[in-house]
């Protein structure tokens, strides 16, 4: 052929199909990295095309949530906020939380939402959850800018730890992926996940220090509590932007280790299940 294009790059020269062989094959995911890019791009394009306010939702949604939290939990319920004004205190948690919730939602339902593709086209299925945890990064960045604006308004100047913000986001990404790699395939088989996920996310939010500080958790339970991986993410985030008490890095390291284990197992589970997606989706 005169002109051989990307296919040469993407499909290996020899494809072996064998009923007995299993391998994790992360190389094929790497070969399809451009598809990840296009799937992320599609999520963003479609969202901004279908709605009048488009990108503004990335800002409006957290702002309203923070306003409501501030009035209800800050003013009425008088939940303490570690000597920081309640609005920036809760906003600093809503930003990573919203990212995590959106990534987990997309990761768990992405396969089913794209069932046509799964049924009719070959590509490494891992591409879908990967794209789904990357797409909300854009919203995260936008709402993070709003957070910086709010901090300015309250006269709070973040110190050097603010540079670690991407690290905490990355941790939230791995966490969403590790859970999503399990929920996604289960969702293919049992559509129950669709109904379960919203309240799972809601309960998880109240189990995480979004509207309250970790300091109200009794001391002796604190370590156990910190094993919820989102505790470390949120506390780390607050520490990075508000410059308050640093998170329990020991517990954070332990929960990160847990996340990595779940993630690794999730990768194998996903690859194993992936082979029957097209048959049962």
């Amino acid at each position, binding site marked *: 052929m005169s002109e051989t294009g990307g296919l040469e790059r993407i499909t290996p*020269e020899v494809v072996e199909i064998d009923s007995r062989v299993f391998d994790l094959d992360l190389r094929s995911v790497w070969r399809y990295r451009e598809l990840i890019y296009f799937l992320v791009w599609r999520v963003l394009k479609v969202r901004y095309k279908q709605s009048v306010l488009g990108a503004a939702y990335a800002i409006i949604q957290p702002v309203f949530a923070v306003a409501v939290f501030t009035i209800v939990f800050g003013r009425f319920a008088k939940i303490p906020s570690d000597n920081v004004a309640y609005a920036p205190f809760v906003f600093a948690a809503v930003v990573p939380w919203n990212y995590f919730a959106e990534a987990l939602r997309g990761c768990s339902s992405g396969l089913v939402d794209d069932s046509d593709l799964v049924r009719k086209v070959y*590509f490494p299925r891992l591409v879908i959850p990967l794209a789904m945890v990357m797409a909300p990064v854009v919203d995260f960045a936008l709402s993070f800018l709003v957070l910086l604006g709010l901090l300015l308004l309250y006269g709070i100047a973040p110190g050097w730890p603010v540079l670690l913000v991407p690290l905490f986001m990355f941790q939230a990404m791995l966490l969403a992926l590790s859970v999503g790699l399990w929920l996604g395939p289960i969702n293919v088989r*049992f559509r129950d996940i669709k109904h379960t996920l919203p309240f799972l996310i809601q309960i998880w939010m109240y189990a995480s220090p979004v509207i309250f500080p970790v300091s109200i958790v009794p001391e002796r339970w604190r370590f156990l509590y910190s094993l919820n991986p989102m505790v470390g993410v949120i506390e780390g985030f607050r520490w990075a932007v508000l410059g308050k008490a640093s998170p329990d890095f020991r517990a954070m390291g332990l929960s990160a280790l847990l996340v990595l284990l779940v993630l690794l197992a999730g990768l194998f589970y996903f690859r194993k299940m992936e082979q029957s997606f097209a048959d049962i989706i």
Partner: protein
Amino acid sequence: MSTPAAIQVEGLGKQYRLGTRAHDTFRDLLADRFESIVRRRGSRQPAKEAFWALRDVSFEIAAGHNVGFIGLNGAGKSTLLKLLARITKPTTGRARIAGRVGALLEVGTGFHAELTGRENTFLYGAILGMSKQEVRRKFEAIVDFAGIKDFIDTPVKRYSSGMYVRLAFSVASHLEPEILLLDEVLSVGDLPFQAKCIAFVKRLQQSNATILFVSHNMFSIKTMCKRVIYLNKGEIRYDGPTDGGIALYEGDCRLSTLPWTERRPDEWTVRVTEIAVTDESGRPKSVFDHGERMRVRLEYEVRQQLEALNFIVAFVRSDGVACCNYSTETDGVSIDPVADHGVIELVTPPLSLVSELYTIHVLVRKKGFQEALSAQIGATFHVRHELFDTHFGVFHERAEWSVGGPEAVVRAR
């Protein structure tokens, strides 16, 4: 050394468990498990039925060869392509594919309605495995081939279905694979576009690509492939020169049950045992001239006492278009079988169908087009006319014209 094999398939099989899809929610599964525990001591529940969509299929295709895959719906053709395209994993066996694979099992899956033609071109390209640079480089050619230049920045939800398919196929056809898996996609779009598609496949052939082509259209199979593999109930029934395979397939189709019914011929209340296609005087014939009349003779058996049967003979074109049907009921003939078998004959009006290949479907229903008592496929026949083909529509009839105005002259032929 002979030509190296592009595809080697050894003992490939795919088993589906019927009912796997039944548990769409976790609750169903629990309910089912519970039921099976409760029932354990009583009547044993029949094991979940496993069925082989494809069984122990082996073949080899040399690089640069085209092979057509034929068989009734459910014979395993699409399953085979899905396995080779790596969409799903085989239950048994293995396959080795040497070369870049392009699979077109359905055109346009992955298009997003809200996105424009341009955006979808890039997205679909990426889905099919093309790089961004590649799509960018071929963009002009893709839009040109699809013939939708003016609409490239319009969301595809505003496209006609023809435009949609043309753009999708155009992207796909610029894949330039070494091995192409094609499932029935050439039968989309209008005729000029189909001609383009055939030209595209021809060009691929010249570049020594290997093409696996699934179709129900025996015409396309004949023009494209020298070799066919005929699958029947998941197994290879024939592998060899095209003419022999098609003859065998058409022979098997004769009097077999229509695929949508999911019943075996011997399960029907009425069984058509013979469908004979002849000319008016009763001589067997399979090629008819446009305007000729056809005699169809049906022999049937009935399994229980029935009355007021409605026999329907339908002509279905090779691309699946149901062109016409004749029914005893609409023509005011009442069939009340007294014996357990009988014969019924139909003489068609002069055939006005255009030049093509047709299959005869025979249905027997209860009065008022109620419940089907039989649904079988009969013989195939060709209609011949030097001018009238599908460009002229489904059928062609002579009309009467009147021409007004002083200078008009009507010459009788």
